[in-house]
Structures are given as structure tokens and as C-alpha cells.
């Protein structure tokens, strides 16, 4: 697949981070890799924008972070989903689906 990676839509980055974190706690780089991997390279997350987004989510109380040691014995900040984050993910996913189907509808009818 050689398609040009497209920028992540504004506002969807949070959703993607939350979704990524449902599996396990991850550090920032891991999140960026996982997101790239899942989207099969289509979505290229601007790695730099990941960190302010994580900070924002943490302030909302949707994710929490702590410092842990990686398998290579390095100190890294790991982020994980909170209960509130899990609930938010459900609601955000729902509204995203509505949004997508609405856009789809418009694209189909015109």
C-alpha cells in the first residue's frame, strides 16, 4: 500500500488515542506506532501533537499516567484509560458513527 498518509482529522485524535488505549497501558511512542499500524499507514499521526492531546485527556480525567520501566529497562511514562475514559470512548464512538453516516448520506445523495 503506497497511499499518501493523510492527516488525522481535527477532533478525532482524542478518539483514536482512547481507542488505542483500550487494550493496554502504553507510552506515547507506542501509541503512535499502534495507531499507524492499525490504520495500515493511512493515518499519519503528527507525533508531536500526540503529547498535548494526551495532556488534555489527562486533564479531562479520561486517561491517567504513571512512570514505569519498559521491557528494555528504560523509564517511560505510560498512559492508561480511566473508567471515565472508557465511558467517554463509548459516547465519542457513537457520535463519530452518526457523523460518518451523515457525511456518507450527503455524499451518496449528491
Amino acid at each position, binding site marked *: 500500500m503506497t497511499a499518501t498518509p493523510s492527516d488525522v482529522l481535527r477532533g478525532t485524535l482524542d478518539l483514536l488515542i482512547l481507542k488505542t488505549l483500550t487494550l493496554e497501558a502504553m*507510552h*506515547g*511512542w507506542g501509541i*503512535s*506506532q499502534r495507531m499507524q499500524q492499525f490504520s495500515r499507514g493511512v493515518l499519519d499521526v*503528527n*507525533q*508531536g*501533537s500526540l*503529547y*498535548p492531546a494526551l*495532556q*488534555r485527556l*489527562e*486533564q479531562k*480525567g479520561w486517561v*491517567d499516567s504513571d*512512570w514505569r520501566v519498559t521491557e528494555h529497562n*528504560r*523509564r*517511560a*511514562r505510560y498512559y492508561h484509560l*480511566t*473508567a*471515565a475514559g472508557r465511558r467517554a470512548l463509548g459516547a465519542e464512538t457513537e457520535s463519530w458513527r452518526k457523523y460518518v453516516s451523515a457525511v456518507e448520506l450527503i455524499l451518496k445523495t449528491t
Partner: protein
Amino acid sequence: MALIRRLVKRLRALLWRGAVERELDEELRFHLELETTKNVEAGMSPADARRKALVDFGGIEQTKEVHRDVRGGRWIEEALADARYALRTLRRNPALAGAAILTLALGIGANTAIFSAVNAVILRPLPFPHPERLVMLSEDNAEKGWVRNVVAPANYLDWKERVKSFAEVAAYTGGGGATISNQGVPQRVRVRGVSGNYFSVLGAQAEAGRTFEDGETWQTGTPVAVISHRFWLDAFGGDPATIGRTIPIDGRPTQIVGVMPARFSFAADTMDIWQPMGWDPQSRTQDFFRRAHWLRVIARLKPGVTPEAADAEFQTVVRRLQVEFPATNRVMGADLVPLHEFLIGDVRTALLMLQGAVALLLLIACANVGNLLLVRALGREREVSLRLTLGAGRARLVRQAFTESLVLSALGGAAGFALGWWGTRALAALQPAGMLPVADVPMDVRVLAAILSLTTLTGLIFGIAPALWSAHRVPAEVLKEGGRSETGHGIRRWGDALVAGEIALALMLTLGAGLLVRSFWRLQRVDPGVDSRGVLVVGIRLGSGYQGNPSSTLAFFDALRERVRAMPGVSGASQGMIPPFGGTAFTSDFRIESHAPDDFGVEIARDRVTPDYFSTLRVPLKAGRFITEADRMGATPVVVINEALARQQFKDRDPIGQRITFSRVADSTSVWRTIVGVVGDVHQTGLAVQPQIAAYEAFAQSPTSYMTLLVRTPGDVESLVPGIRRIVGELDPNLALAQVQLLERLQERSIARQRFIMSLILVFAATGFLLALVGVYGVMAQMARRRTREMGIRLALGAQASDVQWLVMRHALAVVAAGLGIGLTAALGATRGIQTLLYDVAPTDPATFVVVPALLLLTALVASWLPALRASRTAPATTLRED
């Protein structure tokens, strides 16, 4: 839980910005390293891998900036940055910061301590229910010159029965000592006689057992007593079975019926035991019940009755008593004041003066700190201008200076709080016993609030002024001037005004202190009339076994004196009733035989002394003879009078051989005593009190059971005590020494309050004086620095060093003179307020009003001469080369 975690994290982001930033750095570095490793694994060279990682990341600094924005709390960060900046600048100039903080601390600390005392004594209500309904009743007697005097029991009883405005009226005695025997060991205790309703009038309940009933004012079966909490613990170990126990008090078996709670305190008294008066009902109608005055009387007003209305009714009753009992009450007036006002008494003036003094000190402190900041603002003119030019926001500059002052006043406030806390304790601990009529001087919430508002307010005032000023200056002008010219006059004029104000305030403070010092100096030089050095005072009160038995009383004291005199090192042993400087005297009416029958005298101090009394105390004989061993019972009753009485009653006639009696109207029962000698005046009541007219009877002709032994020794006075204690114990095992004291100490103690107040004022004034000098020095140093260039030019052109010094000195002289003028004018009015605290010194004492301003002027000129000198000594070339 999660919420708390979040809050903690946010707080941490605010307070430990450095740590949070470091963590972000680490997090990003970690990310880049992993990304680089990934790229290397994909086959890139390490350099390319690193570059690609950075490109993919897209701007580390932007990320951090966005991250910070998201973190939020920017204004708090800025405020904290300001505060940190302020701390840094303060650290850069530790002398100034230290001076300012110390100044504030002194001002605030002194105010806190004194205000706490004022609050505890004057502002806080008495610790009784409805304290506003408690009043003090006293006798006034124009003829005898009595004001708020103690009351005769018959008058007390009449007031109690007749005045309807009073719900209840109680009486108590000043309190005295007694000897109790606790498990066989004689012990001196403090006892107060009270009417049965004393505690119920105050509204105080017993902690255990009961208080007294109204009827117990009069004789009942067994004598009863209520004891204090402290005494209960000390003497009985807090044993509940103490109630109901019977102990001998002065030999009389007395039953303990109650214990008062620890918090019970009436006018900070330290009584161990309260006992009902236990009057004999027959006394009610006897003459002495109206003639002898020894009670303090308090009344509780009925609800809804104002003190004024009560006083009106009270006065009609008093006038009726004047008619009913003309012999004793003809000119007897009475006085009703709120109890609180009475208890505060004369300490009020002293406290208010101290409060005034520390208020002046605080003003000086504020002016001084303002001054220091102004001086610094001037010194930083260029820095500020530079920052303005470089684009710093004016508002932010103002805010920065403002924060700086707030930080300064917060530090000063904290130090002041600590000093105040310590000072309050020190004040309460060091005050002469009983000066503050309260049990404790706490630093309460109101004081705390006062301090906080003071520091904040001072911070605001002297923070805003220089900051506003520096912000509205045109930067280019300042930079052009090179911070030297005479523009910016406004702020320097402010500086001058502050210094002048400081000088004025310091002058007032120092003048007040000067007057008190002079007054105290005079007090110390008062001739006490006795030589108190090397004299031991021992109070002895015989038990009830000696009552009505004069010969055994005499025998006891004769034996005591004889044995004490035989002790090694004793050069004299004698007795009187009340020692000199004892704070009180036993007084009565009198009549001189050769005067007209209606020409009677009032208020003569009486004492009963042994023959060697005068020689032991070294009271000089002015005429006639001292009392001798021959003046015993059965011999002609004799009396020795003092010079004051001789002057007042006999003018230029010879008093020797005249006869005197101690009653107003002589009758067949009157004892006429022949005046055999005249002695020098003794300050019986205290050094600050003029000697009263006095008469000394012979102890052997009228023995009493309460006596004071006076022992003189050329050696160590206190080493005599164990020996005397042993002798007394051998003569009567049931006796304890009532009071053991050095006469010298008593003399000092009689002016301890004056000394204490003077010392406090002196400390405050010295501090204010120093602060004012610092202010003068600071402003003049700044001025000298500004004019260094001018001086350099002048010197280069051939002016003398003294000429250029005069430039600064002239300015200082003008400022200081203005301050002195203002201060003198204000002080002339203000010192009248402390007249009652002065002894033999006018509130406008010329010497003080010349010496103190001169001293201030001189030191201020020296303080301004120093910087002038330094400036004039700088080599002209150096100054001109600067910039």
C-alpha cells in the same frame, strides 16, 4: 480518589513547573530515541534516522509550548514567576531585603504583642456571664481625699439592702496570708475573705462541691472554705475526698466545701483559699462597722437597668445614709463604675501609651520600607527603562514590582508574626506581677487578622507607588539621562517627605521615651527615707492562740528578736507592722490635744514599732528621742511622728510633749499618746507616692499578732533565712514565714511598673530612632550617589571636599529640620496624654525637649554626612569616566 489524583497532578504542574518540564523533556527524548532506533533498524544511518525522527515529530519546542498551554494556569505561573523573580532580586540585595524585613518584623511584632495585651486587658470582656451588668461600688470622701476607696461593712450592707437596682451585692477583702497545717507541715497560703454571695454575683460555679451561701457572710457553725484548683492539686493531689475534709487555717479548724475551676480568675488574683467573712451579727450595729473601711464591693445590676439609672438610685441611698449616720457618713460619697473599667484602672493609660508608641513605630517601619523601596526604584530606573524599551508590558512591570513588595511584606509579616508571638509571651512573662489584671494574654484571632491586614496593606501601599511611577516614565528620557539628572523629582520629593515624616514620628516617640526615662531617673533618686540595703523583711502572723493575749504575743516577738539578734552577722533586728514600700499603710483619723475639738485630722498612717526600728532602717531622728525599751505597757503611751506631720500640724511650734489620739472625737475612752520624737519621712507606700503624715506607736504598748521582722546585716542577707526559719519553728512549730523578701527588692518593686513601661518605650523609641536614621542614610546615600558626577565636576574645577559635602548636608538639614519641626509641634500636644505616667516631670519638660531633638538632629546629620563624605572622596576622574 481519581479526582484527588488529578488535583494533585495539577497542583504539582503549577508549583513544581521545573519537575513537570523535566518530565516532558524525558518523555519526548524517549520517544525520539525509540523512533530513531526504529529507523536505524529499517536500514538508515544513525544521523539520517535521527533527522527523520525529528521531522516526523514536527517541532519539539512547539509541542512543548502547546503542552504548556494545555496544562493551563498561565497567570498563576506568571505570578509565581514574578514571586520567584522577586525573591531573586531580594536575594541579590540582601542588605536592603534584610533591613526591610527586619523593619517590618519589628513594627508588626511590637504591635502584635502590645495589641494582644490591650486586647486581653481593655477590649476583652470579663470572663463572667453578663459582665456588662457587673459594677464596682466604692466610697468617695472629699474630706479625706478618698477616691474609689475601700468600703465600711455597714455601708456595704446598707447598699445591699436598700438599692433596688442591684440584683445582688457582694464584698471581698484584698486578700491576705494565712498559715495552714497540711499533714502537720505549716504552709503559707493566700486567703481572701468574701461575702457569701461573692461567687454567685460573679456567676461562677464550683468545679466540685459547692460555693458559699448568702447567709454564710455571717457566723455559722463550722468555718468553711473553698479552694482553688491549683491549690487542690498542689496541696491535696487533686483528691476528690478533699471536699469535706477539715484543715486548720491559722489554727481554726475549717471545712473545705468546694473547689473552684482552674479557669476561675477574678482580676488575675492568685488566691488559694476563699473564706466567708463569718461576721458576728452583733457587729452590724457597732460603730467600727461603719468606721473601718476594708471591703471591695461589687454589684450585679438587675436585667434592663443601666449603670446610670442604678447610680442615680444608689446616690439617693448614699445621701440618706449621710443624714442617718452623721458621725461617720456626713461627707461619705460613693462611686459606681463598670467593674471592667475599675479593674483596668491605671494600667489603661500605660497600655494605650504603649499602643500609641508601637503604632508610631509601625508608621516609621512602613515609611522606612517605603523609603528603601523608593531608593531602590531610583537605583533601578535604568533597568526598568531598558526592559520597557525591550518590549516588556508596563502592566507587567507594575505587577512585578507589586509582587515584589507583597513578597517582602509577606516575609516581613511572617517574621513579625513570629516576633509578635514571642513578644506576647515575653510581655506576659516579664510584666511586674499584677500589672495586667488578666490571667493570660493570648494572641487571638483578631490580632492575627489585624497583622495580616497590616502587612497586606503596607505591601499594597508601598508596592504601588514606586511601580506606578516607574511605569509612566518615558524610557528614552531615563536612558538618555543615564540615571543621573534631576528629573524624577517627584519620587525624590516623596523620599524626602517620607524621611521627614520618619524623623517627626521618631522624635515624638523619643520625646515620650525621654520624658519617661527622666521621670524614672527622678524616681530612682527619690530619697526613700530608709536605707534599704542589707535588710531582710520577714512577715509573721501569729495563730489564733495568741488572740486576746498581749503578753504571750510580746513574749514571742521579744524572744524572736533576741534570738535573731544573736545570729552571727546580724547587726540589728526590729519590728514594724507593714514594711516600707509595702504598697499599703494602716490609716485612721486623729486629733491633736492642743487643737480645737472640731479641728481633727484624717488619714494618718500608723505603725507599731520596736525601739530599734528606726536605727535598723537608718531613719534619721529630727527632734526628741526614739521609742525606747522603757516605753512598755503601764508606762505613759508615747508616739514618734514624722516630719510631714510635724510640718502639717505644728508648723513652727515644737511638737515634742504634745499629745495625740487616734480618733476623731476624743472621749473618755480615748488613749492620749505623748509625742516624744520626730523622725524623717519614709516612702511607706512606694517610691512614687509622696510620704504620708505618719505616727509610730510603741509595739510594746499595743502589741498585734501580725508583724514584720526587719533584720539588718552587713553580710549576705539571704543566708539568714534558714536560721530565722529555724528559730521561728522552735518558738512555735505551727508558724510559717509569711513573706521573706529583701527590703531593697521591695523598694525596686514599688517602681517596677514604671521601670517596665519605661524599658518597653525605650526599646520602641530606640528602634524607631534607628529606623529613622536608616531612612535618612538611605535617602542621602542615594542622593549623594546621584550627585557624584556633579561633585566630580565641581572637584575637578577646584571646589573643596567640604563644599561638595555641603551639597548633600544642606539637603539633609532641610529635610531633618522639617521633620523635627513637625514632630515637636505634634509632641507638644501628645505628651500631655501621658502626664499621669510621669513623676515630677512636666509633659513639656524643657530639658527633654531640647536634648532629644538635638540628639536626633546630630545623629541624622552624621548619617547623611557619611555618604556625602564617601561621594566627595571618589576621585573625580573615576566618576567622570563612569558610563
